[in-house]
């Protein structure tokens, strides 16, 4: 019998086509059905949570999928936290989307796709085998592709969807090479089901001694490649800002709260493999994460598109989670707690921020330039107040939840520095993360002040007003959670990994991030709290131009690699192919005197054909007779 936990992810998947079809006639049904199915998932998740809360035995049920690959569900404390978060946030966003998408003629398709996405995401979390995990990994990628391109008639959206798919595909294929290495090496050692997650995480030391820590490091690096593609880490982060062309609820659901954290979940899921690999695997995760946290933050401070600011902040925040996981060799499995706690908090406040952005864009008719907004706090007080809560959470100002989750990660990075030789190399992560916190404060309050304060700088902004209060209820719930989730910090850590190490750092270090944030807030008040920014002309400044050009990485990928390398290669090869084809024909007619003979064959080709066939069979018979008669 199937365990009821299967239906956590099966229900939305089954309801996805139903809501598309049922919603065709009565549009309202689509959103209702999709939300209902996710409510079922949420209820089931809560039941599962209650049932495994007290024990450390996970729910594990599996079947043979094909060959020596099993598929099934594996629900431990980590997974149950993730399903609770995903189904809850997804439900909030679905409820809000019923308002946000109310006028779209294809909203049945929209809700079908988001329900499918939610099912895929829940399946990814519960998967008990890495290949099954990869199936859902790609399914959510497909949904992301479809939903980014949901407004397919917008050329920008179509091209953003293409970019998102291809860039993540690069990461996905690195991931599958990692699976190939793991599979090949373990199968040779006669492991019955080499990609099964419980097997991998329970036998990691044995696996390391069997296939060698070196190989495990290669696997870890390749998995990191996959995670970097999905979770938009440097240098594969380029697709997320473009993906903002999709509906804002999609950005909230997929590109802020859930799918982009799948890479973090992947690494957390197989963390014992990293723990038993050489330290390089963990360090790569740490440095990529810490660097991305800073790197994306610096771009965020010059972007003017409201949604793209949030997109860069997502990249940056995921960098923090990644960095936390990277410290596994020093702190053991405790890092899962640090990372996942920030993941959950981030999902809540980022979903909130995106939905407030959605409300603003709806009333401003998709005008996304923050320089054209302003003065909205007076015109839409409830929405902007909610956005304020989201912003202070993003900037990790106490007492919001992110203050607890993010500053813990920064403090852990300081301890990493102490425990790893206190050299210039090991202090880098901490420096990156602290400067990243400054960047966070800068771009968050720059965005907030430009949106909320001052005078309206466009006609649309002047006429903005709050939507009906009832549609803001999901946002209020998320805002409430942003403020209060900090209360459960240590219980959360211990639920995921029993006896998580408590982080203790010197007082001065503990207050460093907060000081940095305060400085950041003061700077933004100085510039954007007034009208000073309107008199600043940075267009000539080389640093500004470098940031504005996003460090030329997009240019490198599209203008250089795609257009200067792949495209000419393709053109050259297809020209070669054409020439090859023509020369074959030429050689053929030359060798056979095609002019005459071929035309003859052409005229009576079937007769000739039978001559060939019969001659062949005749020779065979003849040989049979001759040889048989010997």
């Amino acid at each position, binding site marked *: 019998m199937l365990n009821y936990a299967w239906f956590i992810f099966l229900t939305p998947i089954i309801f996805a086509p139903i809501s598309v079809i049922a919603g065709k006639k009565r549009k309202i049904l689509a959103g209702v059905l999709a939300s209902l199915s996710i409510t079922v998932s949420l209820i089931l998740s809560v039941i599962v949570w209650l049932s495994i809360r007290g024990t450390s035995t996970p729910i594990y049920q599996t079947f043979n999928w094909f060959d020596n690959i099993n598929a099934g569900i594996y629900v431990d404390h980590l997974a149950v936290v993730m399903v609770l978060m995903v189904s809850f946030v997804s439900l909030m966003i679905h409820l809000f989307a019923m308002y946000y998408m109310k006028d779209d003629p294809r909203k049945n398709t929209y809700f079908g796709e988001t329900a499918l996405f939610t099912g895929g995401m829940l399946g990814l979390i519960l998967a008990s085998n890495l290949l099954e995990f990869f199936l859902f990994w790609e399914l959510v990628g497909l949904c992301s592709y479809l939903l980014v391109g949901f407004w397919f008639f917008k050329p920008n959206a179509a091209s953003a969807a293409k970019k998102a798919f291809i860039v993540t595909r690069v990461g996905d294929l690195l991931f599958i090479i990692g699976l190939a290495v793991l599979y090949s090496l373990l199968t040779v050692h006669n492991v019955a089901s080499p990609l099964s997650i419980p097997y991998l995480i329970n036998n990691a030391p044995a696996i390391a001694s069997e296939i060698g820590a070196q190989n495990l490091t290669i696997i870890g690096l390749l998995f990191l490649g996959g995670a970097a593609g999905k979770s938009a880490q440097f240098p594969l982060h380029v697709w997320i800002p473009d993906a903002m062309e999709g509906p804002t609820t999609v950005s909230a659901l997929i590109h802020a709260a859930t799918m982009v954290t799948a890479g973090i979940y992947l690494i957390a899921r197989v963390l014992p493999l990293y723990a038993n690999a050489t330290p390089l695997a963990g360090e790569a995760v740490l440095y990529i994460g810490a660097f991305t946290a800073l790197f994306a933050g610096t771009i965020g401070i010059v972007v003017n598109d409201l949604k793209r600011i949030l997109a860069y902040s997502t990249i940056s925040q995921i960098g923090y989670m990644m960095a936390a996981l990277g410290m596994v060799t020093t702190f053991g499995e405790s890092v899962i707690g640090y990372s996942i706690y920030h993941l959950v908090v981030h999902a809540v406040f980022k979903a909130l921020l995106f939905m407030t952005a959605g409300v603003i864009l709806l009333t401003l008719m998709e005008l996304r330039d923050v320089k054209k907004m302003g003065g909205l706090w007076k015109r839409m007080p409830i929405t902007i107040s909610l956005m304020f809560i989201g912003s202070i959470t993003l900037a990790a100002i106490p007492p919001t939840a992110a203050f607890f989750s993010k500053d813990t990660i920064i403090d852990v990075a300081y301890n990493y520095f102490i425990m790893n030789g206190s050299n210039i190399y090991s202090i880098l992560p901490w420096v990156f993360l602290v400067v990243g916190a400054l960047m966070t404060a800068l771009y968050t309050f720059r965005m907030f002040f430009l949106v909320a304060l001052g005078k309206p700088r466009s006609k649309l902004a002047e006429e903005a007003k709050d939507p009906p209060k009832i549609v803001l209820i999901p946002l209020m719930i998320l805002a409430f959670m942003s403020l209060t989730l900090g209360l459960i910090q240590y219980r959360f850590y211990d639920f995921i990994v029993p006896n998580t190490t408590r982080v203790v750092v010197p007082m001065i270090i503990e207050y460093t991030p907060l000081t940095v944030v305060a400085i950041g807030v003061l700077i933004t008040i100085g510039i954007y709290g007034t009208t000073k920014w309107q008199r600043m002309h940075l267009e000539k400044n080389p640093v500004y131009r470098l940031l504005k050009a996003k460090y030329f990485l997009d240019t490198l990928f599209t203008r250089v690699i795609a257009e200067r390398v792949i495209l000419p290669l393709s053109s050259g090869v297809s020209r070669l*192919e054409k020439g090859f084809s023509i020369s074959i024909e030429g050689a053929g007619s030359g060798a056979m005197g095609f002019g005459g003979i071929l035309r003859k064959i052409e005229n009576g080709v079937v007769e000739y054909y039978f001559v060939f066939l019969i001659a062949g069979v005749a020779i065979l018979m003849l040989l049979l007779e001759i040889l048989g008669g010997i």
Partner: protein
Amino acid sequence: MFILYIFILAIIFAIISILMKKGSWEIAMVESLILMVFTSIYGLVRFSTYTGGMISTSSFAIDKSIGITFSTGMDGLSIALLFLTTVIMFAAIYTARNEKFDRRFFGLMMFTEVGLYGLLISRNFLFFYVFWEAIIIPVFLLIAIFGDSRKEKASLKFFVYTQIGSVFLLLSILTLFSYYGPSHNNVFTLNMSALLNPSFITKDITDKVPFWTYFALFGFFFAFLVKMPSFPLHSWLPDAYTSAPYPVTIVLSGAISLMGGYGFFAVLMPIASVIGAGIAWTIIGLGIFSLIYFALTAMFQTNTKKMMSYASAASMGFISISFGDGLLSSGQVSYTAFAGGIYQILAHGLIMGLVFASLYLIKQKAGTDSNLSVSGLWRDMPYISAFFLAGIMASLGLPGLAGFISEASIVLSSYYVLGAIIFLVIFGMIITASYHIWVVQKTLNGPFNENLGKIKDAKASEIALLSFLFIIILLLGVYPNLFFGPILNFVKGVI
């Protein structure tokens, strides 16, 4: 025996089709439907408990003294491909509802099906060869009569290429045959299982692999690589695929393309232990080169049909790779590689069926299959667009669909043999993903090209076929054991 009755039924059907003057489409459609249903029922009944080896064997001696028998039999490989054949033939005939196609067309289609059926059930090299040849005639005629303006050149090229391949096939069979008798007390046979015996093939006085073995291997490889097609023997493919009318393209890409792969796994896999590492690496090299070369060529095509023809050729590269991997590895890794290769034949055929069937509808409704002159098709034809997108996604190996199971098996098992070379395979897959996604962006997305005028979405009957193909692809992607189990048992029984 039951399978033999279906085969005889297929012959009767083909004759009926060519004789009946009216209602050719309806007749052929029902006939191919019956064949598909019967074959599927047979497969479900007999292969649910399949544990390897040959089942449903039957044998009619034609000349006992020299060992010619019409012997038939089924195994995990042939049931998978037989299912593919009947589904693809049904789909091709179903889409061919067009006044242009008369009874000649449907008769030839049914004869193609007979040929494929015969090839897949034959266990005697004489009949293997006869059916191998017999498939060429109807397909050649279908292209030559019903093709587009370049049909003469295309059909001739197809004919000459496959004919040269067949000559080599014949020579190889003759070689095996003529060396078998003298070393077996002058008992002559054309039985495939007797001739494809590694201990016979390597048997020599000096205990070395004799020269004629290499000759025979070369002939087999040449014949199968032409049919596959693999670089550099592929020149017939783009011409034949694009020149043929769409239903014939479906047959070419879905069913005819299985012949090369079938040859690999039915003829060459049993003698895998004879094939040296040099040959195996050559095959892998050709496979990887084909994958990248065809993918890069496809990327630059402005005609979607031609693009997908090259895409079809590129994904055949996986079969070569898997075959070489299987040869160079042992135990479970080689099972996975070989089984993945066989599953790839099945998955590729079905996926190409869906891609070309939906592209045919786009061509009919929008009037062109050039990807530069259509855009924004989602707006007016959401159903066709959805199925075309599904086909494209399946073709680039999206998990949950049939192509993923085979590509995953092949890639997973290939690291053991390929090591870092696996990055070349991945490079090919990235190129594949890029142009697949590009063609979707170009044709389905973007603003609607108003020059196309008013276009209609598919009718319910057309959607039914596309859904049917899609459901099979989805089923084989989610529940692969339906075929993967028998295929794996077959592989384990042979190796």
